[in-house]
């Protein structure tokens, strides 16, 4: 393995949610380094803090304690608009529940992230069509999410995650809502993205899905309990 600077580095990250009077610790000091182009699976039981970890890395939330570096920049103390900027440009999200906008067509869903980066309308369209092509949904571009199967919706979501050419794809249980066969198709797609050089971090609790990754990080009670390569 080449010695390179990690694209993502977590330094003793803690996240504590306050639920009224009680503190719910979701992450209890997680340190982790992820290099450019890695394909990592984060595994662990339900409620162990996997999603919380993903949300921190994806700039959707900020840690209570600790630091997170993305491309060498500390994002744990960034302003809301700074975080939004990173989410838009450097990160692509794929969620378990697809999270498409139900009122928009497949194509509009894919081009939406470019809108927030003020990309020109024609460029947006062209790129959107390209991405739908990539996930094999060129014929469904004007369909609403409700007119698509779960697998198709997740493919639209993957196309959307690539809209602004992010360096990192974060996939939180991308196959969680899909049957085994469709899930496998999605995994093929993620692997292809990995081969194209994207850094991929995927959360799953399914070992069959996890084995596609090149490294597995096991989390329990908000702490990393094992971290090994296949």
């Amino acid at each position, binding site marked *: 393995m080449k010695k390179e600077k990690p694209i993502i580095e977590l330094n003793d990250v803690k996240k504590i949610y306050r639920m009224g009077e009680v503190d719910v610790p979701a992450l209890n000091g997680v340190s982790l380094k992820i290099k450019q182009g890695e394909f990592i699976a984060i595994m662990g039981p339900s409620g162990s803090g996997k999603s919380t970890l993903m949300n921190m890395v994806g700039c959707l939330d900020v840690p209570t304690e600790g630091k997170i570096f993305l491309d060498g920049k500390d994002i744990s103390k960034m302003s809301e608009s700074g975080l939004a900027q990173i989410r838009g440009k450097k990160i692509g*999200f794929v969620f378990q529940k697809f999270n498409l906008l139900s009122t928009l067509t497949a194509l509009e869903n894919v081009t939406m992230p470019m809108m927030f980066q003020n990309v020109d309308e024609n460029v947006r369209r062209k790129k959107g069509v390209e991405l739908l092509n990539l996930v094999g949904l060129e014929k469904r571009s004007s369909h609403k999410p409700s007119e698509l199967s779960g697998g198709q919706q997740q493919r639209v979501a993957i196309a959307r995650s690539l809209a602004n050419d992010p360096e990192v794809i974060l996939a939180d249980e991308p196959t969680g809502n899909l049957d085994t066969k469709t899930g496998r198709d999605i995994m093929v797609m993620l692997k292809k993205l990995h081969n194209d050089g994207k850094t991929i971090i995927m959360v799953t609790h399914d070992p069959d899905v996890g084995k596609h990754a090149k490294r597995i990080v096991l989390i329990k009670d908000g702490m990393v309990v094992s971290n090994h390569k296949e």
Partner: protein
Amino acid sequence: MIGIFIGIAAVVALISIGQGMQNAINEEFSKAGADRLTIQPAGGFAGAYVSEKLYQSDVDVVNRVKSVDFAVGVIIQTGRVKYKGETEGASIFGIGSDEETRRFIENVDFFLVEEGRQFKSIDNNVAILGSNVAADRFDREILLGEKITVENKEFKVIGIQKKSGSPMHDNMVRITIESAQELFDLEKTEEVSMIFAKVKPGINPSVAAEDVRKALRKDHNVKEGQEDFVVVTAEQMIEGFNNILLVVQVVLVGIAAISLIVGGIGITNTMYTSVVERTREIGIMKSVGAKNGDIISIFLMESAMLGFFGGILGIVIGLSVSKAVEIMAVSAGVNVLKAYFGFELVAGALIFSMVVGTISGALPAKSAARMNPVDALRSVM
């Protein structure tokens, strides 16, 4: 949205009617002529009951004022008019039939005769009808030469006035002052309701008005400030009317403003609901890079659109209402109400409703933007 369109409809209707009314009144007074003075008993207006009175002797006093060309006393009373068994109320207008008065009358648009003729000095028991009285007030049109009964006396119709657009004059029955005195028992006192005076050419009406005041004060033996009469120039009359109208408009617009505020609160509520319903959508947009400013613009745009559509609806309804009021007023014999349709009114109302929409959406949009992306995404809505 309902509130905003009611509010905008009210504003548009009120401005439309008010502006139309003002235009009509200004026109009416410009028809009466700028060189006209009106002298009334103090404390009342045009026939309303007042304790102070004016008499034929006052007319003579005014006539002797140097800056006054000519003055005439008139009797204005309301009376019952009967025609073919039907009785209607009308304002009865008694005015002299002498040569000088006739020349005065011929220069006033309100008194122009379309059919028939004006009074002659030998006329007795004759009437000239306002256009509405002749054409609209009774089931059957009153024709030249027919008989009508005013109070208990019969009059022959010798003239029908040209439609003037002035409700007062179009609904009058004009008779000679002698007939009016007889009809209303004013022969002995020689009381008059009002004095019209024409200012000599080249003399400023307000200067002439002051001359008249002086002469009447001297004659009535009263000090300045204690007059039992009022002298008004045409200009002051217009101003007075416009001031009254302004007050009425301000009050009505105030009422409209309240409904607009209610409408605005309605939009705020709608937008809050929309924000809550779309919490997850907000989370999704944030997760793909929407900045707080983007979310704010999205929701502000939406509330401005709500305002815009409410405004369009309000303008359509408001203008229809004012047109309907105009039609109703005309059929009731009131011609002063002319609905006003101006581009500024429509454009102003549209911009205004969008501004109200935007302002009303400000708080909900802000609350949408402030949402934490993770919480928003976890929302089940």
